[in-house]
């Protein structure tokens, strides 16, 4: 399905929701839930908080669906804007701890090529390392890099979600990139490539 067809399908779902079709809400949720969940998890880095934020995001979005204007932004961008806003409230309240990354990311595990429990464990270790690396980033940089590399948003879309100029979004991605590059060890890089090649 092309991008335009995808957008049209979304707009049809929105129109059905606004006309009172309850099944359309379910379909809309199923279409975007996984992406929103991954985004929220990448920002708040906690499963329980992620579930709370997710619920909050979709309830708000469904209640305010009449306010969405397709001429201003794509529905995904609009939804992600709500999600980022809710995540910011959460980690402002919780104040995520800053982890000392000099003690982490010393990964030297052998990654078997087959899908084995050891491979899954290694993958989880890499994910944990990435979570810790993201925790060390300031919130703005974390948001920028997650939106860019985790969800493939353009700088214009990132700017819209984060409510900043596109150039600012670009520099935040670059700064996050630089920051994380110092923290991700070569061993972890090679390990991740092996895991992703399964």
């Amino acid at each position, binding site marked *: 399905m092309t991008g335009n067809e995808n957008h049209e399908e979304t707009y049809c779902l929105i129109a059905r929701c606004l006309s009172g079709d309850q099944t359309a*809400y*379910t379909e809309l*949720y*199923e279409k975007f*839930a*996984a992406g929103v*969940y*991954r985004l*929220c*998890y*990448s920002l708040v880095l906690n499963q329980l908080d*992620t*579930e709370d934020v*997710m*619920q909050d995001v*979709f*309830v708000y979005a*469904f*209640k305010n669906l009449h306010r969405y204007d397709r001429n201003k932004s794509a529905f995904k961008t609009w939804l992600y804007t709500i999600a980022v806003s809710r995540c910011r409230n959460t980690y402002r309240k919780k104040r995520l701890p800053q982890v000392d990354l000099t003690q982490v990311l010393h990964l030297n595990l052998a990654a078997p090529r087959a899908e084995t429990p050891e491979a899954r464990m290694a*993958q989880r270790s*890499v*994910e944990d390392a*990435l*979570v810790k690396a993201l925790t060390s980033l300031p919130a703005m940089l974390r948001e920028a*890099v*997650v939106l860019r*590399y*985790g*969800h493939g948003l353009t*700088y214009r879309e990132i700017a819209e979600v984060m409510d900043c100029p596109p150039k600012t979004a*670009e520099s935040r*991605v*670059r700064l996050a*990139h*630089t920051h*994380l*590059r110092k923290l*991700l060890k*070569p061993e*972890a*890089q090679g390990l*991740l*490539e092996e895991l*992703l090649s399964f």
Partner: protein
Amino acid sequence: MIAFRLRYCKRHMVAYINREVSPRIRSRISRYIDQSPACYAEYTRQRDTQRELIGGLSTMGRPSDQQLAQIWVGIERDMSQKSSMPKCGMGAFKLSYGIVALAVLTVLVLPLALGGENVPTTVAQPVLARQVAEVTTPNITEAVATPEAVAVSGEQPMTAQATEHPVNDILPQAAITPSGDA
């Protein structure tokens, strides 16, 4: 020169890898990467980091179907609670509050709506009482003025009739002029 090239590469490398630079900058960085080992090392480092980030972030936090279903149950519950207004509770409270406000307004406005006759002039009465008092109790000094003094001053003596004006006919000006011009 080498330091300048490396600084230039570092500034634009992320955008270069993502093909987000102008043709002029792209050409320049490509040349630096070819000519400078330091720039080439910077390119490979940034490229590998980006690959790792993309790979890690695209899989991180992937929810299970069960998790999503559980969240959906919570969303449905929230939506159904907020969409239906309960008969008693906040809605009823607002309704009774409105009725009370309407009743108070009616009590205040009704006397005015009925007209002025039955309106107790609780504010005006003291003024009227004062006016009556001033008319019924004339200035003693003038009342006892001798006819000769009055004739000299040119004032008309106050007669009893002047004090017998009904309350309704008393004009505010009459109280001010003890000469009885009212």
